[in-house]
């Protein structure tokens, strides 16, 4: 099998990640922050250790600002609904995943907020955003790297703009965490949301919400047990527990810790280079096939989107699957991006590379796609 759906979730995982999950489940998986017996403390210790790793990896000053969630979508919802107030205006790009677009749209439909959309493919990103700023613009929310194509936005410049206009900068790093160098302080990121199971090489069941030190406390969206002040009616006012209602996914958090160590051992620059090389090889090969159209080819990254003339994207992906190649067809939870790229009717096929893919995988992809057009 050749796995080319790493934008959905990376596969396989490094062996040390699997070993840590097994170790966790067999030797220290108590309920962290609940009680103070040895197993609860051992789980709490592991979670603290991973919080420190995450804050260090993303350039966040205080590990207490690292909030573990169930996934990136939960993190984004906590950020969006926790920081936006009635009457606020927010700016997003036209390449947002539904995990941003839907909560924003739901709040707007209730009359709570208003939003504007900028064109992420336009050359002057910052200028595009600046034109949309209003007096009540509270936040800018952008997808660092698109999950549809290889578009990556200039985060540092957007961060600078947000600081200048005192807007909260919320970054969805679903596709970039582990593939791009991200430093919250240096890049002016106020809120970073990311999944553990993609570029950070953890497993499913864990996401991250990382808040810049000094940011005001967000409102809670989910309330429940926190292991702190349990006789009080309100959630605690200290992070991370304020935003971590319910039991944490300790095995997935432990896996994330090993995933980050793995990413660090390879280096994000090396990973990026490797993925870009696979992208370019595939771009060259697929472009040479009559009837194959590549979308946003000027941008280099880990995700390549294409269609085959006259063949529905589902059929192409099913054919590739029959050849042992896993890709994803359709709209990738990003209808707006597909609209912009001109694939709103049938979607397209997405190939997304991971650290364990090899150049030979691009040969196999080329051969399998070529079979379709003859």
């Amino acid at each position, binding site marked *: 099998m050749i796995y080319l759906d790493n934008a959905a979730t990376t596969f396989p995982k490094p062996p040390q990640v699997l070993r840590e999950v097994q170790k966790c489940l067999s030797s220290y998986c108590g309920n962290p*922050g609940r009680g*103070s017996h040895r197993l609860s403390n051992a789980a709490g210790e592991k979670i603290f250790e991973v919080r420190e790793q995450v804050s260090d990896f993303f350039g966040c000053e205080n*590990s207490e600002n690292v909030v573990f969630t169930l996934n990136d979508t939960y993190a984004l919802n906590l950020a969006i609904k926790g920081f936006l107030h009635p009457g606020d205006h927010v700016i997003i790009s036209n390449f947002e995943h539904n995990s941003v677009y839907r909560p924003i749209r739901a709040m707007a439909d209730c009359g709570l907020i208003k939003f504007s959309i900028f064109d992420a493919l336009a050359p002057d990103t910052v200028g595009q955003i600046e034109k949309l700023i209003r007096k009540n613009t509270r936040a800018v929310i952008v997808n660092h790297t698109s999950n549809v194509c290889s578009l990556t936005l200039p985060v540092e410049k957007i961060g600078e703009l947000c600081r200048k206009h005192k807007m909260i900068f919320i970054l969805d790093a679903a596709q970039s965490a582990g593939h791009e160098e991200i430093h919250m302080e240096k890049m002016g990121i106020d809120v970073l949301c990311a999944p553990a199971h993609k570029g950070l090489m953890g497993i499913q069941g864990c996401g991250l919400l990382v808040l810049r030190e000094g940011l005001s406390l967000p409102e809670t969206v989910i309330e429940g047990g926190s*292991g*702190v002040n349990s006789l009080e009616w309100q959630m605690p006012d*200290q992070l*991370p*527990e304020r935003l971590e209602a319910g039991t944490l996914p300790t095995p997935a958090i432990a896996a994330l810790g090993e995933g980050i160590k793995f990413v660090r051992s390879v280096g994000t620059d090396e990973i990026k280079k490797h993925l870009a090389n696979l992208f370019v090889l595939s771009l060259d090969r697929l472009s040479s096939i009559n009837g194959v159209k590549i979308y946003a080819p000027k941008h280099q990254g880990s995700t390549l989107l294409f269609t085959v003339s006259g063949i529905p994207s589902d059929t192409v992906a099913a054919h590739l699957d029959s050849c042992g190649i896993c890709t994803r067809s359709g709209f990738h939870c990003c209808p707006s991006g597909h609209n912009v790229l001109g694939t709103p009717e049938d979607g397209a096929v997405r190939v997304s590379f991971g650290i364990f893919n090899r150049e030979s995988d691009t040969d196999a992809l080329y051969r399998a796609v070529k079979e379709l057009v003859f």
Partner: protein
Amino acid sequence: MYYQNCTASLGSQTRAIKAQHILTRASIPCTVVATTVQDGKRGCGYGVEFPCSMLSQVKTILEQNKVAVREYSGGDRSL
């Protein structure tokens, strides 16, 4: 050998473990403990227990490391 213990109430387990790491690095023996009342907030919570003889050092170190302590109290257990 027995010591009179004191407790720094810190709220969450996260903050208690953080304090424990910082104090351990400074060679101050301490343990994470569960507490039930902290600075008027009722219910479960966590703190670190340490020899009362080291109270002033603990206060200084935690303050230097920006660890917010809810309250200090005298303990009745021995390390």
